[in-house]
Structures are given as structure tokens and as C-alpha cells.
């Protein structure tokens, strides 16, 4: 239990997808002009990450491990292709489910849902899960944690950007330049979380 909590906290705060691996930077910069849209995209990313990471774990474990389907045949070379296809298919599926189940949420998310396919944090989470050799429970916690961390960063960033709209920034630094420096400062603040292990307290 403590182990799973550790993975979650690490993914959300210490190894934050945006602030320490820069994954999903493109949509982070493009969709952070207002807090409202940032919240919508954040929720969508948590949702997709929480589903794709465990599903990709199952695919990796049951289809691609050494000799999983045919003895003696290692299908690892198909990993990238299968992962990205799963993500594209699942995003499409999530889009259809949300459209049927909650039309109001669908309208809010609108264009952001299909864009999530090419958000690098989704594929990144699946690849990290493989390279860190997580088990099923850990990869589920990792997927949710990574999504929460991503959402937290984009919402905080959008709030700061809204306040900055009236600030006197030198013209060449306005917009993109300032956005990067701000993200760097947020990253330094998040470095304060390094080394925490909440799981140690639960025995």
C-alpha cells in the first residue's frame, strides 16, 4: 500500500511530467491562457492517463514479453507502434463515451480531447512505466499521479499567466519567453518535494 502511495506522490510532485521531464509542453503552453480551459484539459489528461497506462501495461505483459504469444519470439520491437495505436484508439473511445454520457463536459473539452493523442506525456508515461518495471498496481497509481501532476502544473501556470497580463514585461520577452522562465521558477519550487517518501509512515 505504502509502495503504491509512494509511486503516486513521486509521479505527481517529485518527478512532475512537465516540470522535470518537460512532457506535454506544447499543449501546456498553448492552452494555459485561462484557468477555465486549463482545468478542462487537466481533467481530460488525468482521465486518459489513468486509462492508457494500465491498459498499456496489460498489452506489454500479455502480448509483448519474451515468448508471450509464440515461444522464443520477442515482440518488443512492436512496442512503440502498439502503444501509440492503443492511445489513439482509447482517446477516440473516451471521446465517444464522454459525448454520450455527459454532453456538457464534452462541449467544454471539445477540441482538447483529440489533441491528447499527441500529448507526449501520455506516451511518456507508458514508456516510463516499462523502463521502471512497475507492476500493475504501481502503473495504475503512476498513470493517475502523472495526470494529477500535469493538471496541477497547467492550472497553477494558467493562474499566474492571468495575473501577468497587466504586468510590464520587456516586449521581446512577452508571451513565450516569459512563459518558459515562469515554468523554470515553478520547477525550482517543486524541487522542494524531492526525497519525500510518505509510504514510510504507513506500515
Amino acid at each position, binding site marked *: 500500500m505504502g509502495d503504491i502511495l509512494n509511486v503516486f506522490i513521486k509521479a505527481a510532485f517529485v518527478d512532475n511530467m512537465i*516540470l*522535470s*521531464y*518537460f*512532457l*506535454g*509542453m*506544447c499543449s501546456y*503552453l*498553448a492552452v494555459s491562457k485561462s484557468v477555465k480551459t486549463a482545468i478542462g484539459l487537466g481533467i481530460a489528461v488525468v482521465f486518459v492517463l489513468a486509462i492508457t497506462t494500465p491498459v498499456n501495461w496489460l498489452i506489454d505483459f500479455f502480448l509483448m514479453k519474451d515468448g508471450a504469444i509464440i515461444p522464443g519470439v520477442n515482440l518488443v*520491437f*512492436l*512496442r*512503440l*507502434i502498439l*502503444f*501509440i*495505436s492503443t492511445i*489513439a484508439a482509447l482517446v477516440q473511445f473516451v471521446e465517444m463515451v464522454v459525448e454520450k454520457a455527459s454532453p456538457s463536459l464534452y462541449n467544454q473539452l471539445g477540441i482538447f480531447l*483529440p489533441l491528447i*493523442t*499527441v*500529448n*507526449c506525456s*501520455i*506516451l*511518456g508515461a507508458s*514508456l*516510463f512505466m516499462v*523502463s521502471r518495471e512497475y507492476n500493475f498496481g504501481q502503473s495504475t497509481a503512476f498513470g493517475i499521479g502523472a495526470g494529477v501532476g500535469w493538471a496541477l502544473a497547467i492550472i497553477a501556470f494558467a493562474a499566474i499567466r492571468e495575473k501577468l497580463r497587466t504586468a510590464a514585461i*520587456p*516586449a*521581446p*520577452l*512577452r*508571451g*513565450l*519567453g*516569459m*512563459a*518558459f*522562465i515562469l*515554468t*523554470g*521558477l515553478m*520547477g*525550482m519550487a517543486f*524541487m522542494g518535494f524531492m526525497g519525500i517518501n510518505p509510504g514510510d509512515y504507513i506500515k
Partner: protein
Amino acid sequence: MATETKDGIFGKKERGLLLDPINDNNPVTVQILGVCSALAVTSQVYPALIMALGVTLVTAFSNLVTSALRKTIPASIRMIIQLLIVAVLVQVVEMLLGAFAYSAYEMLSVFIGLIITNCIVMGRLEAYAMANKPWQSFLDGIGNGLGYGFILVVMAVIRELTGKGSFMGWRVLPAEVYTVNNLMVLPCASLFLIGILIWIQRSANRKLIDVS
């Protein structure tokens, strides 16, 4: 010179395709594409060079293939087809690196796989290759790869020099002369650095300034 007005093999238009992305239309600092990997792999020069090479190859060849198939790809499923083309090429690059440049393969780890979702590749496929001829698309891919690589190498040189006092793994600034600044190899330093690079570029090239 006669080729300049028509679709020549290497006229003015083709030269523009190759050189514009280096400054005026740089994929990282102007189009904001492919920022993720640009920041993550630049703490040393060698992996940054390998990454730039990989992205250039993938962008150029995926542009070429997509452009050749552009009339047969149905619009409704074009995203999935483009992703598959890119995924196959990235897999090839990953296997080549694993075979011929194992140390870089180890250092880059997941970031090679992440070339698939590198926005430069998808962005150029959508914006250019779906509407242009194969040869021009191929050059556009190489140009954007070079523009991306240029930013990557500039950042990596600065970060490795100030953070480790070395260049390509060789110690050039001796410890007695220069005390290394460990902040520069941390992730947040690359964000400050790219912010400053954008500031410098936009001060020199004022038409890029964000008016909004």
C-alpha cells in the same frame, strides 16, 4: 537561375525551405513545436547531437512518405495513418541507435520513443506534407530538423560548458579556473536558458515579437 520560378530541384524556394526554419521560422522558438524533447536532452552535447540527427531523419522521411501518399489517405483517419508512419520510422531509428550508438541510446532512453509525439513531426505533416510535393516536403523536413537541432546544440553547449566545464565529455575548463555550476544541469535551468534565448532572438529579429 531559370529554376527559380518553377518547381526546380534546388531553386530559391527550396533554399528557403531549408534555411527559413533556422531563424525566421524556427520550430522551437517561433512555432513552439517539439519543446519537450528540446529541453530534456540538452544537458550534454553528445546526446543532443544524436537526438537532432534522429528527429531530422524522422521528420524528413515521414514528410516524404506522407506527401507521396497524400492523395490516397482518407481525411477521416489521416491522424492514425500519420502516427503509424511515424511510429515505424521511430522504431527503425531506435533499433539503429541501439545497434550503433549504444551509449547515446542509454542516455536518451524514453526520449527516442517520444519522437513519435514530437510535435515537429506531426506539425510538419499536417501543415506541409499533406499539401505539397514529396521533394519539397523532404527538404522542409530536413530544414525543420536542422532548425530544431540548432537550438538543441546551442543549449547543450552552454549547459555542458557551464554545468560540467566540459565539451563532448572532454574537460575544457579546469577545476582550478572554473567551479562548476550544478544548477545548469538541473531541468529548470534549461527553461531559463530557452527563455533567455527567445529574448535574445526576438530582440535581434523584432518582427517575431508577440503583440497580443
